[in-house]
């Protein structure tokens, strides 16, 4: 008796894609996957002109992670939108902050969210935080052909790791490389300015109040220095997005509360 290399019953073991939504799309509806059209012919070397999300950041604090982002999307030197949200809930215990080409980035956030939920429903349990972070890295790598044409997507991923009992955050490069940060990170055109601000103010084991304030201050510093990043707009009532991820889930900080933080910071700086 000889064993044939791939008897049909073995497929059940080798079909790793059964609980991945992205793999399912690749097999059954590839036209729905984000993919690169060749845009180079029509456009200059800089790539097509599309809205870009600017500054997002994540920082660890005592009970978990805080994610924050400004609300502006820029297209070259123009404001493309004043009130987009860049922090997306990916499941109950994690979120993605998007920076880079807004369209593909939002599409990626949506695909990622569906991916996690799909896995949870099919397998009956959640992916580990490392599993989620790796999956997002694969999606960014999938986007590489588009990135080569100027549509770069580099998100921040943060979440609460149930197994380790701590909040964790990850940054990515354009090839899908995944790097864990232990304290804070900021990404986007104002990312460097926000990181500089965080470097001075960040402390380990901050309370929620302190951490939210430090995050908002970093975004305001980025808005000060970077053309693409929008600061709090008191006149229109537009404030940064702040999300908190802890053991008990993904929560929004109410706009009223953020307004109070912004006003406090502004009046303090005005006095100085």
């Amino acid at each position, binding site marked *: 008796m000889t064993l044939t290399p791939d008897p049909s019953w073995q497929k059940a073991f080798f079909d790793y894609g059964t609980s991945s939504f992205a793999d*399912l799309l690749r097999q*059954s*509806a590839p036209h*729905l996957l984000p993919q690169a059209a060749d845009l180079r012919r029509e456009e200059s070397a800089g790539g097509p002109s599309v809205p870009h999300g600017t500054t997002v950041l994540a920082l660890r604090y005592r009970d978990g992670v805080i994610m924050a982002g400004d609300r502006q999307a820029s297209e070259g030197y123009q404001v493309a939108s004043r009130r987009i949200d860049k922090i997306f809930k990916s499941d109950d215990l994690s979120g993605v902050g998007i920076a880079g080409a807004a369209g593909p980035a939002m599409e990626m956030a949506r*695909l990622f969210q*569906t991916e996690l*939920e*799909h896995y949870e429903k*099919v397998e*009956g349990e959640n992916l580990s935080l490392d599993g989620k972070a790796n999956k997002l890295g694969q999606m960014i790598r999938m986007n590489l052909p588009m990135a080569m044409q100027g549509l770069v997507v580099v998100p921040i991923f943060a979440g609460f790791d149930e197994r380790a009992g701590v909040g964790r955050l990850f940054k990515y490069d354009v090839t899908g490389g995944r790097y864990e940060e232990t304290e804070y990170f900021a990404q986007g055109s104002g990312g460097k300015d926000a990181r500089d601000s965080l470097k001075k103010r960040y402390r380990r084991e901050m309370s929620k109040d302190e951490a939210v304030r430090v995050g908002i201050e970093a975004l305001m510093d980025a808005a000060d220095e970077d053309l693409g990043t929008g600061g709090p707009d008191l006149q229109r009532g537009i404030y940064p997005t702040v999300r908190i991820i802890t053991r008990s889930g993904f929560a929004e900080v109410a706009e009223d509360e953020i307004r109070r933080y912004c006003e406090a910071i502004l009046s303090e700086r005005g006095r100085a």
Partner: protein
Amino acid sequence: MPLPYYVSPEQMMKDKAEYARKGISRGKAIVALEYRDGVLLLAENPSTLLHKISEIYDRIAFAGVGKYNEFENLRVAGVRHADVKGYSYSRGDVSAKSLANAYSQALGNIFTQDIKPFEVEVLVVEVGDHNSTKNEIYHILYDGTIEDEKNYAAMGGQSDEIRRYLKDNYQDGLDFAGAVKLGVRALMVTQNKTLTERDLEVAVLDRGKERRKFRRIPPEVLHQLITNGT
């Protein structure tokens, strides 16, 4: 080469139906009940790991009786159908009706074309939203027959008796505790032992929940509900 025996199509269908029905009636029953804040699903299932009731999408749940591997296959296919549809259009465009039709088509095809029919029955349940849209309960049989049910549904072993019991005892506007009690009593009609929380798998589609309405009821809560006032 010998010719295959001739079997009349009528006889073949009859045999298949009988085979499927036998398999299903050996299994334990599941009931679904509409209550004030959503839809309750109750299954007699001693396993806490292998589920008979599960989530398909935001407002849609699935329940299957019969052979586990067969309805599990159908469940995963349903999750795929719903997720692809929700991703390519929007979350609000995923409906129980199109899913129930897909199940009906699949089971119908298997029944007529395969040698062995699936020994399963499934329920596809969608909870309505606050704007008084109705709940939907679809019951799909092993041969692809599809029925829509109101107020309550039962399937699996001895489901006729359970349905009769529910017909006599179901009232509109049940609250959650009342619905659980009625459901447990209905499952006990056909047997002479008392069911405890360890024999039951219970979940609801809770209209009050955000986005994903599906929620499993943990055994401790179930214990409280069953023992109170019986």
